[in-house]
């Protein structure tokens, strides 16, 4: 395997993971906020639904995605009308990665929302801030560390997603073959060990890098440490 191919695999994986997070993070935050703040009928059901990808076999999740978002699936047809084709395309890999990472995104965000002192929002209201202003100036900055922690965790998960991806979009070099899938393919062939080791090294580097990045960002926005 030549270096150009390895670079291509890494770039594709980063693209898939990044695109999945762009869509999944805001959705996960909205759900985390609703779960952390409100009591409503069906809250338990929503909670279970969000956790499902974590506990279901990834193959099953991938198959369900194929049924729903495949060329003949109801959602697949809907998106197809807008020119977005998931099955066997990198967009599908991003969708699978986002769905599988979703529970990991929601959990730290929800904890941050629940841990936030609502008294601060009350104080802001007495100072004249409207609901939207309170959300932007108080709530959002204070839960941001939780949102970033969730996003980094989700990004790392999305980079390495395997089971649902291979089931939903298969293992097509240059289109859906992300890091984990490439490593899997290389390990199947007797000559692939060296290239596999390189990709494993890259995976480890990206994983450690994202954790360090999140720590660094966390420290940057940790107002408690400022003096």
């Amino acid at each position, binding site marked *: 395997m030549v270096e150009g191919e390895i670079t291509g695999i890494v770039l594709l994986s980063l693209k898939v993971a990044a695109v999945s997070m762009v869509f999944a993070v805001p959705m996960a935050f909205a759900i985390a906020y609703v779960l952390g703040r409100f009591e409503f009928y069906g809250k338990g059901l929503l909670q279970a639904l969000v956790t499902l990808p974590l506990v279901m076999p990834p193959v099953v999740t991938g198959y369900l995605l194929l049924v729903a978002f495949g060329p003949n699936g109801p959602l697949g047809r809907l998106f197809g009308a807008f020119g977005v084709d998931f099955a066997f395309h990198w967009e599908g890999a991003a969708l699978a990665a986002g769905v599988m990472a979703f529970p990991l995104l929601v959990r730290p965000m929800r904890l941050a929302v629940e841990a936030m002192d609502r*008294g601060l929002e009350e104080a*802001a209201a*007495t*100072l004249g801030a409207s609901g939207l202003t309170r959300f932007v100036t108080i709530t959002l900055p204070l839960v941001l560390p939780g949102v970033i922690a969730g996003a980094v965790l989700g990004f790392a998960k999305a980079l390495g997603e395997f089971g649902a991806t291979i089931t939903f979009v298969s293992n097509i070099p240059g289109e859906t073959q992300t890091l984990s899938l490439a490593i899997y393919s290389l390990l199947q062939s007797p000559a692939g060990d060296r290239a596999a080791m390189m990709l494993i090294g890259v995976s480890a580097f990206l994983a450690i890098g994202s954790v360090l990045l999140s720590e660094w960002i966390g420290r940057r926005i940790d*107002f408690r440490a400022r*003096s």
Partner: protein
Amino acid sequence: MSLEVRLHSRLGEFEIDASFSAGSGVTAIFGQSGSGKTSILKMIAGLMQPQSGSIKTDDTALFDSAENINLAVHRRRIGMVFQDARLFPHMSVARNLTYGRWAGKRTGSADLSRITGLLGIEGLSERYPATLSGGEKQRVAIGRALLSEPALLLMDEPLASLDQERKREIIPYLEEVRDRMGLPIIYVSHDIDEVARLADTLVLLSDGKVLGSGDAVDMFSKLDFGPELGRYEAGALMSGTVHAFDPQYGLCTIALDGGQALHVVSQNIARGERLRVRIKARDVALSVRAPEGVSIRNVLEGTVRGFAVDDSPFVEILVDVAGQILRARITRQAFDSLGIREGLPVFAMIKSVAIGRRMVSARR
């Protein structure tokens, strides 16, 4: 400006049924923990909704269940200082102070340097709340509320989370705010000393009901509220003007309104300054003849105005000292043997040592 409050609310087993009005100066809502003080404050601020009643300022109804009015918190223009400061941890002191301006769309006519000067927080603007002491935090919180240009300031036990040292540090600032900002303040507390120092009007609350309300000095000199104002701590408020300070003995002579002198241990206070002194009933002894050769520095002449006798070993007596009421608590045995009755001239004796510095406060 004045505030008219009429509230009814049932929170489970607990029922609040309170009506009172608050004018200029400090209106203290005094009551034990769990008497509903904080709930009433939250209802005025709009953070809690009463089941029925009305809350009205001079020209605006903030809440009126009959007319279906319930103004949102951020439209009420009511500043609130919470027990736990509630500074925004991710903002500098300067950003906290000006929050009402940049986030609350308040015009910014309140004078920042005047208010930070008044509260002694000029040097803190670049700091973050986590690095402030408890007393500094509370002062910043007061400044932040004042800078949001409120029509009314609510204070929910602003000193309760502080130690004695910090309380002593902040009370003079509260007195400054009261005397210089010209803003009605509703002050909730269960500390009789704080209330005695700060209150112009007193609302006595017990178990969600208003037992009585009125001028603080009058309220402190009524016999009906003995237990509620703290049987052990009960005392009257006397007003006067600083006449002289004797640095050699560390004694301040106060010319009481009506013309008698009271000596208290204190730091140097400027001559001519108006003071209010709380004198606990249990620190006052009575004599029917002019006492001689006693160590007690304060002997005030007066006449017995009233008393409350029951089965307890103590009798609570009100003594009229040139128009001001002093409370004395003596044993029933002494009461009987001295033959105390209404109109009897008596000499009230108060040990200067019994009047602590916390009990003397300035009033402009």
